[in-house]
């Protein structure tokens, strides 16, 4: 986009670093006030994860990455898709239900699963989009409602299509995917047998496509233009209603992928134990990553790292793991504040620079001409 400028780059880097420091500071303060062992907590939090744990972190980050990208697509044009959570649950359920039927052989079934998940996620998001463009319902409200509705609908359908409950189990779920539809992934880190999800590849592809579509295509230009100024976008010929629809559908389609790494690489069915709540972390990570494909990847890793370190925290230090939630929350807030401060600073610097350079230009050509 704009020319590389070291100062601006440093400014951009300053924000997340600053935010992290603030988060550490605030958390330490809370620990001190409540009398918990500060040093122990940080030494535990900063302990290098073992390869097995690191693999888990990567896996978790992959899932969060899809979620955050889904949110970010909306964010780029000022749409707040709070409904990724419902979208991915509905999508994962539908994909699991269809995939479990093994309608297609081998890898084709995986493709089918992927398509069903994307279509269902898009459909669920599409309801909110449709309500927005035709009825003017704020997507913030409608997606929140749709999350709750998704819960009921999936529970109802699950009760209808649930496969035989396996003996002695308290989970119910859809029929297990055939073995040929499993994507168990591959070992990435030495020192562990744990595999990273095969769909990490899809995450990379989606991340690249996200960057490419947003920054390099006409569609992406229209999307960003709408986000920057809806009125200017309309005047430039962007059909904002259509953009709302298509970006919401895209966001929903990506949201539909959130559950797939779990479905294909971990659970192999959609059951009552399927992980929920991934959509909300996605919002936070999109904010931390500033809607940037790489930023989101780093944000997802950081988030996942904190999540995982939290698990061992109470075992190692007797400090409640909710302290990590505080770290995460403060970090999000500090990050957005820091970005805002840096953005203003950058704007002021640019303005000064413009006037300074213009003044310099004015001085060179002697011709008085029109006033500047």
């Amino acid at each position, binding site marked *: 986009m704009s020319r590389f400028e070291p100062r601006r780059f440093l400014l951009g880097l300053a924000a997340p670093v600053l935010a992290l420091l603030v988060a550490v500071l605030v958390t330490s303060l809370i620990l001190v006030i409540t009398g918990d062992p500060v040093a122990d907590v940080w030494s535990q939090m900063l302990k290098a994860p073992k390869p*097995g*744990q690191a693999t*888990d972190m990567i*896996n*978790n980050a992959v*899932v969060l990455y899809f979620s955050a990208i889904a949110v970010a697509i909306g964010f780029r044009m000022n749409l707040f898709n709070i409904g990724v959570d419902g979208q991915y*649950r509905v999508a994962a359920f539908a994909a699991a239900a269809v995939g479990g039927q093994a309608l297609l052989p081998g890898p084709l079934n995986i493709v089918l699963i992927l398509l069903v998940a994307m279509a269902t996620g898009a459909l669920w998001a599409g309801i909110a989009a449709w309500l927005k463009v035709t009825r003017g319902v704020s997507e913030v409200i409608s997606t929140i409602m749709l999350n*709750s509705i998704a*819960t*009921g609908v999936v*529970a109802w359908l699950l009760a209808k299509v649930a496969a035989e*409950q*396996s*003996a*002695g*189990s*308290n*989970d*119910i779920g859809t029929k297990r995917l055939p073995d040929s539809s499993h994507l168990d992934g591959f070992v990435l880190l030495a020192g562990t047998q744990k595999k990273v999800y095969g769909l990490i590849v899809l995450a990379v592809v989606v991340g690249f496509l996200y960057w490419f579509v947003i920054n390099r295509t006409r569609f992406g230009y229209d999307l960003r233009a709408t986000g920057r100024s809806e009125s200017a976008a309309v005047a430039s010929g962007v059909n904002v209603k259509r953009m709302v629809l298509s970006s919401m559908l895209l966001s929903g389609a990506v949201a539909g992928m959130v559950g797939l790494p*779990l479905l294909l690489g*971990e*659970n192999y069915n959609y059951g*009552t*134990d*399927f*992980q*929920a*709540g*991934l959509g909300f972390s996605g919002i936070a990570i999109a904010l931390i990553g500033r809607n940037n494909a790489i930023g989101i990847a780093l944000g997802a890793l950081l988030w996942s790292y904190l*999540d*995982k370190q939290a*698990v*061992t925290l*109470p*075992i*190692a230090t007797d400090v409640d*793991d909710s302290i990590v939630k505080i770290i995460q929350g403060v970090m999000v807030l500090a990050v957005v504040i820091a970005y805002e401060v840096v953005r203003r600073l950058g704007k002021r610097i640019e303005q000064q620079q413009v006037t300074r350079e213009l003044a310099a230009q004015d001085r060179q050509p002697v011709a008085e001409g029109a006033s500047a």
Partner: protein
Amino acid sequence: GSDSDTGSGGSGTGTGKGGGALKVGMAYDVGGRGDQSFNDSAAKGLDKAKSELGVSAKESEANTGEAESAREQRLQSLVDSGYTTIVAIGFAYAKSVGKVAKANPDVKFAIIDDASDDSKGDNVEQITFAEQEGSYLVGAAAALKTKTNHIGFVGGVQTPLIKKFEAGYLAGAKKVKPSIKIDSTYLTQLPDVSGFADPAKGKTAADGQFQAGADIVYHAAGGSGAGVFNAAKAAGANHWAIGVDSDQALTADPSVRSLILTSMVKNVNVGVYDFIKSVKDGSFKAGKREFALKDGGVGVATTGGHIDDIKTKLDPLREQIISGSIKVPTTP
């Protein structure tokens, strides 16, 4: 995986710490110690083991919406910290126990509420409870005690496990009074587990049942049960609630204890204690173990003496269940 050199069988000892006390790692379900329900019951078993067997323990609890890998890591971390007798509370741990047990063959595991292949292993005791049997008896008790021929059930979250409670309750009540009217309400649907922690919803649901004519309401709603008790209190004289998991006439808020007709006791504490004891004395046996009516794993509390008068009618049912002549269904 763990590179501990724990001696097999006998008194499992912590890594590098030499002999001494057995080190028990507890992984609670969401809510953890202090939930006055399921987890607390498990904690009671642990506390007993601590005082009677002299074990030391480390406790840790699950969070809502956490990843499968988080549960695995929780168990593994306990193992890594030298806790080589692990109790996983709740069926959510099924898969993680299966995996972590495989990776740590020297560590002894117990899982509560799961007996599936997921958690099966040579070093895993799968502990389940016949909740439907206990529920059958409180259902029968409710049917015997009702004056309106109308009773209710409030489930926290609609899951197969809670449906087991409902199924037993319905069957027991119908057995005694085939014409009885029974209302069932679930507070939330998965993955929204707030139904176990929302007394306001519990009260609204139970209020509805009382006002529709029910005079006894059984809850299997964890923390939301407090709302059910409050509803019974608000409904006035001759309205009762039935507690769950522990003898709630002893543990609930004192102001509502007198309204608790009975409780369906699920002795998770017994399961936990027995498991720890078996590891301690070397009698650990892997495999399924169901705690049922016959071995006191589930039962009916009599605190308050409100059901003493129908004891003679409940006892035969109990016998029939134990003898197997009554088979209690597990789905409603």
